[in-house]
């Protein structure tokens, strides 16, 4: 709890520092407004309820179906934004937040690719199962972190009563 309070206090800025408020580039502002509430300011929030992006999302780009999965996720495909802005946002998420998890030589998403993929949203599948199967492959064959398994874990089973 103490840690949480510190994190909260740090995220805000005292009034005196207003003149030095951080200027947010477009893809970062777009990430914060479209994704950051749930995924966290830097790609981590509650890891069992919302998938971590920081140092993890890049692993999915090892697989062709993982590369398209990231765009075809309903909240990505149906986001209220243009193909161009969504492409910038996705490249920010993968290459900046994803950090070292991105495979060497991965090419950025193009507007054309994103425009085509988001028109085929993943609406008729079990997203959890699809992700679980990809995560298994990524951990077994691509040396991905086992932290990918945190999302979807039953946190309630490990909780102490209030």
């Amino acid at each position: 709890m103490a840690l949480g309070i510190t994190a909260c206090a740090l995220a805000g800025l005292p009034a005196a520092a207003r003149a030095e408020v951080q200027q947010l580039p477009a893809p970062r502002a777009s990430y914060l407004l479209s994704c950051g509430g749930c995924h966290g300011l830097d790609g981590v929030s509650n890891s069992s309820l919302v998938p971590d992006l920081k140092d993890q999302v890049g692993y999915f780009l090892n697989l062709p179906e993982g590369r398209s999965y990231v765009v075809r996720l309903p909240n990505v495909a149906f986001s209220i934004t243009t193909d161009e802005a969504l492409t910038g946002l996705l490249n920010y998420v993968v290459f900046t937040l994803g950090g070292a998890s991105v495979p060497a030589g991965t090419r950025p998403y193009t507007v054309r690719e994103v425009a085509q993929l988001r028109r085929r949203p993943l609406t008729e599948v079990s997203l959890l199962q699809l992700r679980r199967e990809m995560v298994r492959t990524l951990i077994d064959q691509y040396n991905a972190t086992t932290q990918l398994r945190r999302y979807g874990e039953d946190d309630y089973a490990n909780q102490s009563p209030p």
Partner: protein
Amino acid sequence: MTSHFDELSERLTRNLARFSSRRGFLSKLGAALLAAPVLPLLPVARAANGEQPKTDFERNAQAADDTKCNYWKYCGSDGVLCSCCGGGHHSCPAGAEPSPISWIGTCMNPEDGKSYVIAYRDCCGKPACSAGKSCWCDNSDRELPTYRSALNNDIIWCFGNSSAMYHCSTAALIGAVK
């Protein structure tokens, strides 16, 4: 000189009329120019360009007192202000825990007219703060209906915490929109 110019422009206009169809490129360009202001733009872009008319909240916003509902960072706040409960507009009162999952929007600072990114975090794990009526706010700038729940302020954002009990609401400044 004038007549030469007149002749030239007349010839250009006549040629344009003769060789362009009504369904051609020019008419499409004209339609696109007409439609441009109607096409949806990101709220950030509109706010940043100063094209957006001010909301009721923005017309009455102030930057001096964060224990009042019209403090500018509360433009999308719905709940009791943590600044009335022993916390601040960006920090939780002692014993309450900030929600890691929240919603994020933008508010306009009346002092410089610019848009800023604000994270609306709830403070959780304690019973609701019993502050006076003036500390209970119901603002809704750039909030979306419940079917777009990621940007909705009727949700108790404590569901990602160890205790989902709602105590109060904060509005943390994250940065300025370039």
